[in-house]
């Protein structure tokens, strides 16, 4: 089987990265959208303020102008008649208008936000009071039939005071105009900044989006290529692994068919070859099927409460022949009265079997391995740990991080022509995790490795 330094884990990670990138793009776009919405809202509020302020100010000034004129107009109307009743009616009209003006001036003063506005309002209030004093006197003279004196007083004092009131009103109007201009300028500046922000946000969004899409596509492409490579490598590896036993079986069969086997001894030898290679073939198919099965997210185990010794003994029974053929002795150190565990006996046995087979494969010159089982307690959770130790070649740090990845095979294993599918440890890890446990590895290059299966105890 060919070495596989690229793995499906990377494919999964690549897929996750693309999701993270897409999420980041989404978040950035949402952030930009929120900033734009906030800017638009602020612009709207500012424009609304200007509109309200201008409309209210103009409306107020318009009303004041009308009522000021009405005050004087009604007073002058009183001059046009000698009928006391009509004069009283005109006086009433003038006083009603002057009441509205006085209230309007007070409103304006209350709404004054700056010292300049207050000063202008107070100047208008003072000049209006001066005019009203003269207006009262003029009205009195009119009602007392002193028309000539009334006209003289109005021309000499009323008109100048009235003119002052008009000037004050014009000053307030100019103030409103200036403030409106300032606010319009502020909004224009705000709009300019908003436009710049929007442009920058759009450019940034486009660039970021483009880069992100490119990155996602690239990641997906790489991921797809990796997946395809993995699949091809898997097929190639499996084919290669299949070819060897099949070739051996085929050769033995042909030997028998072609009559090359002449005696019973040779026939037994050919039979042994066929049986051994068929066994390899069966093991390989089992491993592939097991790997495929452990990858599915559905219950496929026959879960029972198990004794640890049963699991260990089952695994050892399956590798007895291998141990004998390899000349490797195994030391057992099983603690008495271990807690029960929950799991599928065949699966956990296969898991330990994989660890034991690996220990044999990688023992190198060492002729002994060990298996131990003891109880453990971690964070008040009780469990059992079953360790398989070898004293062989060990695993380098660079490989140790990848040994549980499917199809991963270390360069040393490949170089040493040690047979394997790269699925054993991956299957063992998945099996441990299926029953709430885990598989850990500690190794020192040149000194050997310890693989430990941790399983939770049955409460």
């Amino acid at each position, binding site marked *: 089987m060919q070495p596989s330094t690229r793995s499906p884990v990377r494919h999964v990670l690549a897929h996750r990265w693309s999701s993270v990138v897409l999420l980041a793009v989404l978040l950035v776009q949402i952030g930009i959208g929120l900033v734009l919405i906030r800017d638009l809202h602020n612009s709207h509020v500012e424009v609304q303020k200007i509109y309200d302020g201008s409309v209210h100010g103009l409306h107020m000034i318009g009303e004041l102008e009308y009522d000021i004129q009405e005050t004087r107009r009604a007073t002058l109307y009183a001059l046009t008649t000698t009928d*006391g009743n009509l*004069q*009283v009616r005109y*006086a009433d009209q003038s006083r009603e208008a002057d009441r509205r003006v006085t209230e309007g001036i007070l409103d304006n003063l209350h709404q004054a936000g700056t010292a300049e506005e207050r000063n202008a309002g107070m100047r208008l209030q003072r000049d209006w009071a001066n005019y009203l004093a003269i207006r009262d006197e003029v009205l*009195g003279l009119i*009602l*007392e*039939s002193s028309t000539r004196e009334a006209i003289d007083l109005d021309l000499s004092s009323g008109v100048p005071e009235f003119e002052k009131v008009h000037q004050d009103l014009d000053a307030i109007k100019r103030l409103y105009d200036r403030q409106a201009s300032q606010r319009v300028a502020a909004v224009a500046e705000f709009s300019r900044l908003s436009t710049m922000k929007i442009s920058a946000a759009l450019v940034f969004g486009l660039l970021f989006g483009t880069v992100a899409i490119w990155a996602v596509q690239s990641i997906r492409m790489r991921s797809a290529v990796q997946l395809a490579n993995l699949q091809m490598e898997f097929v190639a590896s499996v084919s290669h692994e299949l070819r060897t036993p099949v070739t051996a079986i085929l050769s033995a069969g042909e030997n028998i068919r072609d009559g090359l086997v002449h005696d019973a001894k040779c026939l037994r030898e050919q039979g042994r070859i066929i049986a051994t290679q068929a066994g390899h073939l069966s093991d390989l198919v089992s491993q592939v099927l097991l790997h495929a099965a452990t990858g599915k997210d559905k219950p496929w185990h026959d879960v029972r409460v198990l004794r640890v010794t049963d699991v260990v003994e089952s695994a050892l029974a399956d590798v007895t022949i291998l141990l004998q053929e390899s000349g490797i002795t195994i030391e057992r150190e099983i603690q008495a009265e271990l807690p029960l565990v929950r799991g599928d006996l065949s699966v956990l046995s296969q898991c330990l079997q994989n660890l034991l087979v690996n220990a044999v494969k990688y023992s190198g010159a060492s002729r002994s391995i060990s298996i131990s089982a003891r109880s453990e307690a971690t964070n008040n959770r009780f469990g059992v740990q079953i360790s398989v130790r070898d004293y062989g070649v060990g695993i380098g740090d660079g490989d140790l991080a990848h040994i549980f990845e499917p199809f991963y095979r270390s360069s040393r294993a490949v170089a040493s022509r040690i047979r394997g599918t790269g699925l054993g440890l991956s299957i063992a890890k998945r099996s441990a995790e299926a029953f709430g446990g885990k598989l850990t590895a500690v190794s020192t290059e040149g000194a050997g490795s310890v693989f430990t299966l941790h399983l939770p105890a049955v409460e």
Partner: protein
Amino acid sequence: MKGSVQAARVLPKAVFVLILGLSPMVGAGDLPQRKVKPEQALAIVVNRSNQVDNLSTDELRKIFLGSRSHWPNGRRITIAMLDYEQAERKAALRQIYKMDEDAYRNHFLKEEYRGNVFAVPKTLTSPEVMRKFIFNAPGAIGYLRASDVDESVKVLRIDGRLPDDKDYTLQIDEPL
């Protein structure tokens, strides 16, 4: 006999009527004067800025006749009268002018012709207009039922008495 019987029947009635008829005369000056009801009292009103507080009946008559044309502060006096047929006007003519309508009209025609008065009295349609006129004209003087008076005008004492004082003389005969 028949005549004496009739006399005996009539006599007590006659004595009773005589007693009733004489009773206002007997000791009338010693009895306490009743306060005039506000709706029956004729209040003399001026502008609130007017410094004058009190007028004698004689001064009041001179003012309303136009004989006195200016207030002490030099302001020209403007007389305001209510419209014809109003009870307050009738009371003013009777108690202040001591004239009827014709005599009043003739008086002012004559005075205006002679140039003795600056302007004839203003004739106003209602007590409300009267109040407003007095309020607007600093030199104005007029009259109102005491019940029609409000804060916009000032009520003068006449011979030291206000309309709600005892012995206030200016009264309106016709009920409100």
